[in-house]
């Protein structure tokens, strides 16, 4: 396992180097504001380049059935299909649906996890935007409970 001290040492050096070099140029790095501002799953997929949208068993969404706290809901999106351009994680009932958009390259597996905020119980989606413009989705419901003392 990575030694914490080493991580810190490396971090300081690398941070110093990159602070001046600026953010590395990367083909996909530009922020797709339209996709993140879109209110619905469909509009967000369109903004990410989708021309058609359909449910698919080849796309997977992972997440808990119940989240004890909406502030932190572990969600993952993945697919084994070839020709995937982006994988998106969305929460239907959030003010803006799109949580995260991952760009798929040959160097990484098309399988990503992060944690999302959810204002209320909602369907969550994994949407794969394929190279040909097709969007394929899978979804599941995540129930958000009220924990603690309700105060």
């Amino acid at each position, binding site marked *: 396992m990575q030694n914490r001290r080493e991580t810190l040492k490396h971090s300081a050096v690398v941070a110093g180097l990159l602070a001046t070099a600026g953010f590395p140029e990367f083909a996909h790095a530009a922020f797709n504001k339209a996709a993140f501002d879109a209110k619905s799953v469909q509009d967000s997929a369109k903004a990410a380049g989708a021309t058609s949208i359909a449910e698919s068993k080849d796309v997977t969404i992972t997440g808990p059935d119940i989240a004890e706290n909406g502030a932190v809901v572990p969600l993952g999106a993945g697919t084994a299909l070839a020709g995937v351009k982006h994988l998106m994680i969305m929460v239907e009932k959030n003010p803006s649906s799109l949580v995260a958009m991952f760009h798929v390259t040959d160097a990484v597996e098309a399988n990503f996890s992060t944690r999302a905020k959810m204002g209320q119980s909602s369907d969550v989606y994994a949407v794969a935007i394929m190279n040909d413009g097709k969007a394929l989705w899978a979804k599941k419901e995540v129930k958000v*409970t*009220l924990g*603690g003392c*309700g*105060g």
Partner: protein
Amino acid sequence: MNKKTQLALTSLAATLLVAGCASSPSVVEFNALTDKIVKASFRDQSHVKVERITATDETNRLCSEADVAGKPLDEKTAKRIEEANLKAIKWPSDGKFIGDWKEGEKIAQSGRGLTWTDKADDTNGGNCYNCHKIDQKEISYGTIGPSLYNYGKIRGVSNPNDPASKAIVEYTWGKIWNAKAYNACSNMPRAGHTGILNETQVRHIVGLLLDPKSPVNQ
């Protein structure tokens, strides 16, 4: 208590001396030391004053001591506490016991009020779901208190205004107003007695529990 110990107890800094005594301190000494430590450790914050714990009533004091000792209050003391609390119950000024169960549900859900992060003029909640199952649609409920689902139905209350239901209706009001009237050292707050809920709010809670139309009794 010997003189040396008494002197030691007069200042917090000197509490070390208590422990330094050859013989271990007595229960009374530990109680006195605890009081001193409480006074020195807690402070007012916003509208929450230290008196809330330094000026507690006999009910709390005796029950706390029984808890520390690990044995329940003797029957006589328990009776006395219950009678005093029963006497202190304020019954509905207009004779109406049953309020709006929908409002009652909101109060039961709310855990707000009376902490130092609440505003002094916030509307207090009843904290009911923290400890009780009530409407079974709410799955996030506590288990410190008994389930209140079907509370009125189980007790055969089909019309709370029927004289036959009078005893249950009054008991329910009394229990919410001052739980210690029926069980001296109950874990349940005295919602009316200590001013957590006002008369109108208590009426709504009684409605939630006893109104045959309330989801509690479905």
